[in-house]
């Protein structure tokens, strides 16, 4: 036995030796360092900057259509400036352009910011750092993943400038609207580019996801058991698995639609008379599309949300100077959410004509998700309880996430109920719900992550006071935008209406839309503070110390430098879980994972 053990150790040592060489051998050129980089840290930065550019585009879009919704028919020089004379003639938004804007806003925010941007940035940055690996399992595929993401982003942006406009059938692109160019201008070339861009995006997500999974499973450093992983890594791992299982379905869904559009097949189309003539399609069903789309579409919600929850779990423990409460329950609830996320997609389809019995099954599975979600929310609360909360900007955004997760989560209980969904389906109640629970939570998590790990990204610190102002303006205006939407919903206002003024029944709600738009403008301007802080700190912020937040994770054990291979010497060895904050028997209120256990000390938050 002993010899076998020694052999394995020797073997490990050799691997380690080769590993270091792999990263130290050559000087890098500008191209390999900044452009076609295979270094996980550089790829994380590339993802982040790309996603920020996309997010700003999508945010400006939202301001344009919010102006239209609050003051329909008014002329805005801003609309004319953004949309040009074709789509914003005299400063009034064109109805087709409105639909293109809401479609592209949704697409970019969901996929390019909150999927590609969030997972791409933080999985890449944190997985190797926090598990003690020199890089991803396959740095080359990791690089390809980013470049597919970039090309996909570029194609999506190019589609905005087509003569007929970008795709406009809503981000859910239901056929036949998305399949027939006769149905709307946006269903022309814009839709083809949307589908091509999404196919590339999926390829990118799959390459990234495979890498994340393999890296977490195989590349953990000595002592880093699965039960010692920070919750961030658990979240990224589970997210990648969900993505791996669901994105291929979206790919087939998109390819079948492309085929209906270009090759004349009838997967989703039947019995259609449009543009003054009957079409030849027969036997297809739009419901099939909806099933395929939401089979990804719902897990997608958790692809967006789980990384944010992982990030804030880590940050809340760190800033409260307390162990995360219920570490194993947190992992268990993430696994439960991941599993359930695959059997709830039908709750988007209660009133589509799907069999009502099927609807009742989905009611049951959907409401079950509330249980692990509630466990997570209460565990956050208990972590804060009797803590010693250090108010960094990351702490503020993390607490913001807990609030939005609960506030947006409870309205999900209403929408999950098929009976109540009859009246709320596709109204502003839904828009309010998912923006708060998914949009705000995910973006708050992302902001928290950027403020917290900025020293690992750019080796400098972000400005705290600007962070404070950014948080409060964002937090208040975000609720100002999305909370009042519920009241539009209870009045029956449908989403994706260019204006509500064609229905007298909505006239008394005029002021709600004004409140929403003014909040949106304030919120958008506040992001200018963040962008300034981000780029200013990147070049001029104070130099980061090794462990600015007094944190336990491995990412704070390496020197403050961009070392290709992450640690200059041997990889660190892990002796404990990541959450020994304020542990009795230690002078400091944190115990890094590399500190060996004392004699008789129990790991993982256990007591004597």
């Amino acid at each position, binding site marked *: 036995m002993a010899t076998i053990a020694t052999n394995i150790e020797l073997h490990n040592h050799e691997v380690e030796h080769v590993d270091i060489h792999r990263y130290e051998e050559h000087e890098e050129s500008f191209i390999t360092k900044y452009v076609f980089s295979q270094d996980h840290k550089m790829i994380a930065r590339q993802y982040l900057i790309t996603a920020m550019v996309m997010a700003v585009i999508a945010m400006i879009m939202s301001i344009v259509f919010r102006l239209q919704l609050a003051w329909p028919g008014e002329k805005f020089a801003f609309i004319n400036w953004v949309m040009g004379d074709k789509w914003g003639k005299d400063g009034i938004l064109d109805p087709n352009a409105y639909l293109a804007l809401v479609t592209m806003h949704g697409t970019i925010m969901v996929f390019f910011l909150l999927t590609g941007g969030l997972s791409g940035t933080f999985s890449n940055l944190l997985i190797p750092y926090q598990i003690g690996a020199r890089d991803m399992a396959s740095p080359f595929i990791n690089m390809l993943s980013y470049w597919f993401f970039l090309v996909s982003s570029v194609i999506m942006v190019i589609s905005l400038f087509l003569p007929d406009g970008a795709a406009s059938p809503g981000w859910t692109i239901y056929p036949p609207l998305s399949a027939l160019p006769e149905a709307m201008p946006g269903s022309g070339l814009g839709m083809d580019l949307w589908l091509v861009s999404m196919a590339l995006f999926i390829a990118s997500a799959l390459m990234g996801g495979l890498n994340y999974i393999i890296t977490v499973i195989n590349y953990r450093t000595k002592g880093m058991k699965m039960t010692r992983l920070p919750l961030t890594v658990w979240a990224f791992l589970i997210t990648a698995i969900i993505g791996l299982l669901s994105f291929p379905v979206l790919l087939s869904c998109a390819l079948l639609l492309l085929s209906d559009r270009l090759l004349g097949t009838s997967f989703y189309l039947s019995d259609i008379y449009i543009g003054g003539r009957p079409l030849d399609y027969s036997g297809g069903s739009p419901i099939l599309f909806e099933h395929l789309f939401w089979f990804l579409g719902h897990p997608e919600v958790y692809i967006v949300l789980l990384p944010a929850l992982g990030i804030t779990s880590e940050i809340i423990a760190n800033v409260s100077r307390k162990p995360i409460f219920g570490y194993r329950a947190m992992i268990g609830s993430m696994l439960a959410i991941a599993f359930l996320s695959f059997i709830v997609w039908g709750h988007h389809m209660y009133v589509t*004509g799907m069999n009502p019995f099927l609807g009742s099954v989905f009611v049951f599975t959907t*409401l079950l998700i509330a249980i692990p979600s509630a466990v997570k929310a*209460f565990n956050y609360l208990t972590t804060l309880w009797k803590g010693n909360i250090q108010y960094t900007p990351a702490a503020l955004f993390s607490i913001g996430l807990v609030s939005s997760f609960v506030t947006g989560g409870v309205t999900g209980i*209403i929408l999950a109920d098929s009976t*109540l969904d009859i009246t709320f*389906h596709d109204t502003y109640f839904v828009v309010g719900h998912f923006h708060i629970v998914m949009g705000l939570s995910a973006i708050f998590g992302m902001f928290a992550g950027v403020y917290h790990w900025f020293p690992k990204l750019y080796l400098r610190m972000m400005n705290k006071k600007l962070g404070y102002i950014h948080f409060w303006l964002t937090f208040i205006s975000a609720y100002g935008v999305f909370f*009042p939407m519920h009241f539009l919903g209870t009045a029956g206002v449908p989403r994706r209406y*260019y204006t509500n003024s064609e229905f007298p029944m909505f006239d008394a709600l005029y002021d709600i839309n004004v409140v929403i738009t003014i909040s949106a403008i304030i919120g958008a301007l506040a992001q200018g503070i963040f962008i300034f802080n981000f780029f200013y700190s990147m070049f001029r912020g104070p130099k980061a110390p090794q462990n600015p937040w007094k944190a336990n994770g491995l990412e704070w054990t390496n020197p403050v430098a961009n070392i290709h291979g992450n640690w200059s010497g041997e990889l660190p060895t892990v002796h404990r879980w990541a959450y020994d904050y304020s542990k*009795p028997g230690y002078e400091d209120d944190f115990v890094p994972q590399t500190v060996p256990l004392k004699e008789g000390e129990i790991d993982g938050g256990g007591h004597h």
Partner: protein
Amino acid sequence: MKLLIVLAVILFILAIHQLLKVIEFAREIRKTKEWEPTDSENDLMGTLMLLFGISFIGLFFYQINRWYDKSLPDAASEHGKHIDDLLFWNLILISFIFVVVNALLFYFAYKYRGNKNRKAVYYADNSKLEMLWTVIPASALAFIIIFGLKYWNEITAPSEEKNPVIVELYAKQFDWTARYPGKDGKLGTTDFRHIEGSNPVGLDTTDKSGFDDLLVKNEFHIPVGKEVVFYFRSRDVIHSAFMPHFRAQMNCVPGMVTTFKFKPTKTTKEMRQDPYVQNLMKQINEQRAKEGKEPVEFDYVLLCNKICGASHYNMQMKIVVETEQEFKEWLNQQKAFKTLATK
């Protein structure tokens, strides 16, 4: 003028640049860990959290107070009352959770704000607590699921009425056509290949049961107190027939026939007398007067609630609910398909 603006911008940037230099210089001298929150900053942020929590919950009630009388009137259909009841109790439940959890969160954020002289409590796990907040939501959900599914099954069950009123709502970009079966009580078969100017819903011209079908545009009528069974079809893209006052909605899917049934409980006239509706209409007409628009009376309406193209926002049809007698008279005035087609 433009030159002045450019100059002002340049000066502004220069001023900021100088200011930043001063700040950076001061930082060099002080050598503080400026990213670490000080106790006074923790106090400030903690207090702001508390203030936010109070205003957040306060504004929640303010919004209810300001906008509740602008939401939909009580359901005007039999099953809709069940939906309203269920919604009421659900709203009470989620408002309670929302208020309590947010209150705790922002209170903790204030109470446990950082202080150099304190140390956090090492408290990593408690399986009893975790069991507690697994079981409580689970039992609350059981209540929701049981009642929700009971009503859902009733609402979606096939009609048991012997002679229900049958209405087909036919959607296209961007209007609705209503079709009644006529004297024989049967809707004629259709095929999209038969669609033409005089045959807008594609009735099969060889099927006699369709000859007496009545096609109606702009507004359709239904009788109060009788079950109405709707069939929905679409000729081009997915639409959604949304009748919010009756708590009714179903998608119209090309290639499929979907269905929904409800029993209206109030005529249009009765609704116009309802105090809640009168107050709502008063507010609506006040706003319309401000915008220089004509005043309106209450009407039931059918909306399209699935994105369907450029004029999605204006795809509507008026619904009139009246007594059975009035309904029959109205129906008699409508033209049958055959007379329409031969013209």
